[in-house]
Every structure is written in structure tokens, then in C-alpha cells.
């Protein structure tokens, strides 16, 4: 079998910036922040030190049936909304269900269902626990529900690698097509972790920004004043398709999913390896497997969460991987607008990387008022950067607690 190429033919999302990928991308280009205040009662009851987050812009009940809302954890609701939209964007293709696959990652899974049902058990007893509690709280609840809804039978997978989950799942989809297991895969990530326990847990790690007096300025990757990430939620999904299959049906091709690279730090359960050895290996592997060199990479959508340590470690890793060639890479930090969608982050950013290559524009980060001198990168801020004509490629970086490093390359077709 000759090498099977994988292209991106559909995009779908529901995010802090909008209920669709179009609205979200518009928000990114407009430099909008998705940060909003958290409900007063939640803040008062739990005395949370963080008073805001990038909560989802669209109420899922505007799109889904009442019964779907009842039977799906919010994380699965978001995944289903994004997956359906991605398939519509791909032209609602008809294909053999056994050739259609699903790969949806998540960082935390059905945390709302788990904790809601624990409350039900304690307050009302076992008879009141929802019989769908288990299938709603399991981490694969999203890939299962998307598979069911689309009738996708080639395989349904769930990657769990914290904040690299969404990116890794896109790699899973890519491999399914390369290996001939599917001709089309709906791949992405989802997260719905705006539960007080998540704010409490991340706060106790000192991982979250506490810029309560100015929430829209809180997510500020690479800025000297950054003090942690801003929680986000939502889902991002792409339709990956075998190139000849896409051509044969006359599909619109956004870009090619060219390769993925992965590594593990084995350094610390949460802290990144400061020199970026593991992360740089993932990036180099992705570029090499794509058959490219560092000079071909004109844009990086960085993981850039706005934590004091993480941003520097990633910048070091990019330098370590590409040396002087990193000067030719326009680095975007879109979490400055979306917040950090955890297990959906790499997926949503994968969509942004795709659109950046497709439209040849690297979005500007907001809030980078005073670039940290430790960041030796060409950070796009103030104005968007037009990317060059001709063949171009971009890198999407995602890293997760546990030491997971995932980088993939998207290139123009």
C-alpha cells in the first residue's frame, strides 16, 4: 500500500468565544477575551480564590434536545456539538460507517456527573442515583456518544494525557487513516471542568491566575506580569480524511495533517523539564516525520498557558529544537483569548493552526504588554502576521501534566 496522506476537511467547535468555529476564529482575529465572572453563589459557598474563567459562550440546550442534555455529561454535550458541526462543515459526506472513526480526548472526563451523582447518593440514597451515571462519567463518554450519533464504526478512541489529550487524539485519528483502519475520522478534544473542585485543586497548585480585578487581562502568556492560567471549557473537533478520498468527493481541503511527534519528560508529575529536552524531541520528531526541516515551519501555535514556569520551558524547548531557525517562526499564544481548555486545548488550537495555514495569518496574542526577556521567540502581538505564500507548514504544541509532550505539523496543500 502506498503512503496514505491525511487532510483536514471539516472543523467544528464550541468555545468560550462562540458556539461555532467561525465565531471563535472571528473572536481570535478580533482579539477578544473569553473570560467571564463565575457565579456569585459558587464563589461565596466555596471561597474560591479565583473569581472568573473562560466559560463556554453558548448554552448547549440551544443546540441539543432536552433528552440529550439529560443523558450526556457536559463534556460529551460539547463534543457532540463540535463533532456534528465538523461533519456538516465537511459537507455531510456519506460513507461506509465501518470506514468512519472517532477519536475524542479529554483531560478529566465526566467530572460533573461523578460529583453530582455522589451528592445524590449522599443526600437522597442509592435509588436516586441516575442509572446512566457510569456511562456519563467515564472518560470515553464523549467518543462513545459521538460514535453513536454519527454511526461511526471504524473504532472510537479516547486519549487521556491531561492538557495534551486533544492534540494526541488528532494524532490517533491520523494514525487510523494512515494504517488503513478508516478513511475519515472525527478527531478532537473536549472538556467541561468548571466544577468548584477543579478550581480548588488547580488553585492549591498555584496554577491559576488570580487577577480578579481584571479577568480579561488575566491570561497573558509570555508577559512579565503573568501569574497562572485561566480555566477554559469547550470542544474542538476536526474531520481528518484520506487525501484521495477527499479529492474524489471534491471536498474542501483546509490543510494537510502532516505528522505528529510525541515524547514523555519523566521529570516531574506536573513541572515541565526546564530545558525542554522532551518537548523539543516531540517537535523535532513531528517536523522530521513530516519530511520537512525547521526552515519550512513558519508558524507555531504554542501551548503557552500563561504560567510563569511553563511558558519559559516551552520557549527554551522551541529554541533547543530549532536553534536560529526559530527566528523564522511566528509564535501565537491563543490561550490569551480562549483560556486553557485543558483536554480540549490542543484540539481547539489544532483548529487554529489549521485556519492559520489555510488563511495564511498567525493570530496576535492579547495582553502581552511587556514581553518577558526570558522568552527568546518571535511572539505575534499587537497585529496579526501574514504568513508567506507558497508551501508553508505550522507546528501545534501541547503539553500535559504527567510529562506528556505532543506536537503536530499542519501544512498547506
Amino acid at each position, binding site marked *: 500500500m502506498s503512503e496514505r496522506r491525511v487532510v483536514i476537511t471539516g472543523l467544528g467547535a464550541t468555545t468560550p468565544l462562540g458556539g461555532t468555529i467561525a465565531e471563535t476564529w472571528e473572536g481570535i482575529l478580533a482579539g477578544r477575551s473569553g473570560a467571564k465572572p463565575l457565579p456569585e453563589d459558587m464563589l461565596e459557598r466555596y471561597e474560591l480564590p479565583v473569581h472568573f474563567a473562560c466559560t463556554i459562550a453558548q448554552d448547549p440546550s440551544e443546540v441539543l*434536545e432536552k433528552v440529550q442534555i*439529560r443523558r450526556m455529561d457536559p463534556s460529551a454535550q460539547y463534543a457532540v456539538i463540535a463533532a456534528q458541526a465538523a461533519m456538516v462543515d465537511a459537507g455531510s459526506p456519506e460513507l461506509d460507517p465501518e470506514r468512519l472513526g472517532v477519536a475524542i480526548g479529554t483531560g478529566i472526563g465526566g467530572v460533573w456527573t461523578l460529583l453530582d451523582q455522589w451528592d445524590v447518593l449522599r443526600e437522597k440514597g442509592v435509588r*436516586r442515583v441516575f*442509572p446512566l451515571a457510569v456511562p456519563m462519567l467515564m472518560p470515553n463518554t464523549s467518543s462513545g456518544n459521538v460514535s453513536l450519533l454519527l454511526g461511526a464504526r471504524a473504532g472510537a478512541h479516547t486519549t487521556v494525557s491531561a492538557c495534551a489529550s486533544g492534540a494526541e487524539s488528532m494524532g490517533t485519528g491520523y494514525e487510523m487513516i494512515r494504517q488503513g483502519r478508516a478513511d475519515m475520522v472525527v478527531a478532537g478534544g473536549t472538556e467541561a471542568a468548571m466544577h468548584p473542585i477543579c478550581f480548588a485543586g488547580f488553585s492549591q497548585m498555584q496554577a491559576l491566575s488570580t487577577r480578579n480585578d481584571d479577568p480579561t487581562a488575566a491570561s497573558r502568556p509570555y508577559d512579565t506580569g503573568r501569574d497562572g492560567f485561566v480555566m477554559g471549557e469547550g470542544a474542538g473537533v476536526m474531520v481528518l480524511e484520506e487525501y484521495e478520498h477527499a479529492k474524489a468527493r471534491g471536498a474542501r481541503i483546509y490543510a494537510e495533517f502532516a505528522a505528529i511527534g510525541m515524547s514523555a519528560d519523566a521529570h516531574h508529575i506536573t513541572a515541565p523539564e526546564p530545558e525542554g529536552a522532551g518537548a523539543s524531541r516531540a517537535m523535532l520528531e513531528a517536523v522530521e516525520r513530516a519530511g520537512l526541516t525547521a526552515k519550512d515551519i513558519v508558524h507555531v501555535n504554542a501551548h503557552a498557558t500563561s504560567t510563569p514556569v511553563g511558558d519559559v520551558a516551552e520557549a527554551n524547548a522551541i529554541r533547543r529544537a530549532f536553534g536560529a531557525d526559530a527566528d523564522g517562526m511566528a509564535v501565537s499564544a491563543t490561550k490569551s483569548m480562549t483560556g486553557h481548555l485543558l483536554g480540549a486545548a490542543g484540539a481547539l488550537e489544532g483548529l487554529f493552526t489549521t485556519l492559520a495555514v489555510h488563511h495564511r495569518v498567525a493570530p496576535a496574542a492579547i495582553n502581552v504588554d511587556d514581553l518577558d526577556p526570558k522568552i527568546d521567540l518571535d511572539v505575534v502581538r499587537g497585529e496579526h502576521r501574514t504568513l508567506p505564500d507558497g508551501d508553508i507548514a505550522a507546528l501545534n504544541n501541547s503539553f500535559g501534566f504527567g510529562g506528556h509532550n505532543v506536537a503536530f505539523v499542519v501544512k498547506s496543500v
Partner: protein
Amino acid sequence: MADQQEILSGLAEIVNEETGLDPAEVQMDKSFTDDLDIDSLSMMTIVVNAEEKFGVRIPDDEVKNLATVGDAVNFIQSNQG
């Protein structure tokens, strides 16, 4: 005490809430599984909600005997406390 008609319409509301089925579809002679396509997980939720609504206890062993909507309505009617 609810009469048969009240129990039927109450049950129809519960079924609608759980499955989205039109309450008018929920008639005495309909089979939960064959006619209404209600699976065992949904049935459990319906049973528990019916217990709460009508103040009855429907033991797990009894649930398998409730093949039709009429079976459930009759059980609830004769066991209301």
C-alpha cells in the same frame, strides 16, 4: 389517591421527560420495550421517578413484570400508600 387516568398521564409525563416521547404515545396497551423502545436503564429512571411521584415502592424484582404501560399503571394503583 390517583385514579387510573391520573396515573397514566403522570407516567406519560415521566416517560416524556426521560425519553422525549410524545406523552400521547404512552397508552395502556403499549409495551415499554417493543413499542416505546425504552431500554432497561431508562426504565430504572422511570421507575424511580414514578415511585417518588406516586408514593409507591416498586421492587427491582417487580420491574421485569411491568411489560406494558398498563401493567405499571395497575401496579401503582393497587400499591399506592
